[in-house]
């Protein structure tokens, strides 16, 4: 082939790729679905509030103050969201390190979820920063702040997002029909996975370590120097419960993308994950008991906060653990799913008890998030689901792993 022909074919390929990308931007499926009808107004309202927040400052839309600088956006979006995203590192550990290959079909969707969760929920961190432009400082070295846990969290978040992006990137290369890039990225996966797992174990606990300095502010039943360990252990069952919960919805909503065989296989995987959850919860319970004994705070159990603490432990750790065990024994998928939902509620409670509810628990004026903070939180969740859906409908995430896509030109023709 002459040089001119090579250049011409490269140009034609680039052109067809652009046409393909443009065709992929078009919406697929029905526009007026119940989910869209609910989510679109909330997203629009959320974006308006975010705009006001950056224009007028935090005080205009939040109830945050000098004494309570971290509210719902940190407590829920960042701290809880990152625990929920823990499924990605647990599952990649199971598949790539423990070699439990049967979980491989759900790795891609879980990693995608993890990546998006970090991108959006950790991205929500920006909203909460009084001077968001300073977020770049720990990276460019204007002021590294190496003595702060935030330095570790900032770098970890950034590197982990990169690691999950690399883990997911073969799917993007398949989508774009870039075989060579796919092979190179695939080769990087195992490195990215191990790097990602290492980062995760550290920053899941690092998030808890952020609250170590709030020793006098957090209710004594929740404050302990072992918060980092509790955050790490609970992220194992939080992440897997999210995989069970989200996977059940994904496999139902995008049912046509999943083969009958994979549907059956997925049900089987749920029991495996339920078992890991039950084991991690068992260890977590003993840790909680150990810490309760260590801190010698049992007198507080008879107070109102004590009842709230017991509700969190009995209702949202012991109960779901028993349900997970029964679901395994009885082969009951519904029980597993109920247990997963209870676990997720329990994690939300636990993280909010530390960051919002039990934070400044004895203050005369308590922090209660404004409706605008709640709307922004919902808007971020909905935007993440929109992006997730966009990716699922286009890239080979739920469909078979190694099935290679048709040439781009075929797809354009089909799309047209």
């Amino acid at each position, binding site marked *: 082939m002459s040089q001119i022909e090579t250049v011409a074919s490269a140009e034609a390929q680039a052109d067809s790729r652009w046409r393909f990308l443009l065709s992929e931007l078009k919406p697929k499926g029905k526009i007026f679905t119940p989910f869209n009808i609910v989510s679109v107004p909330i997203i629009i309202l959320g974006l308006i509030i975010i705009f006001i927040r950056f224009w007028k400052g935090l005080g205009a839309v939040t109830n945050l103050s000098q004494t309570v600088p971290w509210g719902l956006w940190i407590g829920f979006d960042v701290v809880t969201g990152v625990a929920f995203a823990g499924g990605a590192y647990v599952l990649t550990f199971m598949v790539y390190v423990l070699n439990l290959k049967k979980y491989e079909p759900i790795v891609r969707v879980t990693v995608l979820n993890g990546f998006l969760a970090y991108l959006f929920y950790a991205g929500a961190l920006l909203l909460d920063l009084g001077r968001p432009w300073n977020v770049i400082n720990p990276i460019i070295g204007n002021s590294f702040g190496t003595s702060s846990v935030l330095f570790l969290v900032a770098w970890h978040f950034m590197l982990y997002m990169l690691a999950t992006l690399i883990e997911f990137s073969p799917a993007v290369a398949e989508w774009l029909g870039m075989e060579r890039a796919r092979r190179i990225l695939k080769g990087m996966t195992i490195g990215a996975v191990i790097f990602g797992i290492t980062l995760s174990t550290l920053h899941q606990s690092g998030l808890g370590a952020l609250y170590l300095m709030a020793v006098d502010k957090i209710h004594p039943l929740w404050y302990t120097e072992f918060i980092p360990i509790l955050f790490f252990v609970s992220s194992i069952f939080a992440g897997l419960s999210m995989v069970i919960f989200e996977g059940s919805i994904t496999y139902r909503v995008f049912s046509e993308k999943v083969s009958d065989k994979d549907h059956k296989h997925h049900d089987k995987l749920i029991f495996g994950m339920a078992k890991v959850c039950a*084991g991690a919860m*068992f260890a977590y319970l003993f840790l909680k008991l150990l810490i309760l004994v260590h801190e010698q705070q049992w007198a507080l159990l008879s107070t109102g906060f004590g009842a709230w603490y017991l509700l969190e432990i009995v209702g949202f750790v012991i109960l779901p653990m028993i349900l997970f065990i029964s679901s*395994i024994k*009885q082969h009951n*998928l519904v029980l597993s799913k109920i247990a997963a939902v209870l676990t997720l509620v329990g994690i939300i409670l636990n993280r909010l008890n530390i960051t919002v509810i039990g934070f400044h628990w004895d203050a005369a004026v308590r922090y209660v998030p404004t409706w605008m903070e709640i709307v922004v939180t919902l808007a971020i969740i909905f935007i993440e689901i929109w992006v997730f859906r966009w990716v699922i409908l286009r890239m080979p995430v739920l469909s078979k792993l190694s099935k290679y896509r048709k040439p781009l030109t075929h797809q354009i023709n089909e799309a047209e």
Partner: protein
Amino acid sequence: MEDFVHVNIFATKGIEYLVVIAFLLAIIPFWRYLNSPGRLTASPVVSSIQDAIQKMVGSIPKGVFLDPTHSWTFLEPSGSARVGVDNFLLAATGPVNYSELRNTGDKITRGDVISVLEKEGKQLKVYSPISGTIERSNRKASNVNSSDSEFYDQGWLYKVRPTNWKQEVGRLLFARKAEEWIKAEFDRLKDFFAFSTGKYGYNPEMVILQDGGALAEQALDQFPAEIWVEFQAEFIDANKVD
């Protein structure tokens, strides 16, 4: 009494040590309980899946080719090929009657129905692994048990003079590949039964654990006709390769 030292168990963290010891003692029985088979598999007639696989895998003699639709063939030195139903299928169904057997002299093509396995009105169609002309049929095949050591010698259905052996044999499985495939089919069978029982609300005595449990031999025997139809689609028709 002056030498007596009062030890405060809280100050020495005694209870913490006790909690840690209790955890270490509890984790083993907890994990064993979690991994023990569920109550559904407590039937004494349930044999372990590992035994069943061992029996099947060990019983595939050299020179036997398996078709993914669960039939087999073996080329005799005379040039005739024995054709039959594999013992995976027969282990799943238990003893069956063969109906709609073809006659001597019939010409068959790979993928043609060569027999129907029948049991109490429930049926499974079996396809030919090769093309050729039927030289003999074995009316006594149903007397041979799937676990017999002479299954491949006595349990054949037809002797066929193959017409396209070289090409067709390339699509069949043998040796290590055949063994791996049979193992995978057993795993699939476990999933299949677990899923089918849930789907039809049917709860037979001998069921299979979804995760690492045991599989009953002749499990299909206990299921209703709908599940036989699904079995045909999942394990025989879906595996057809032209």
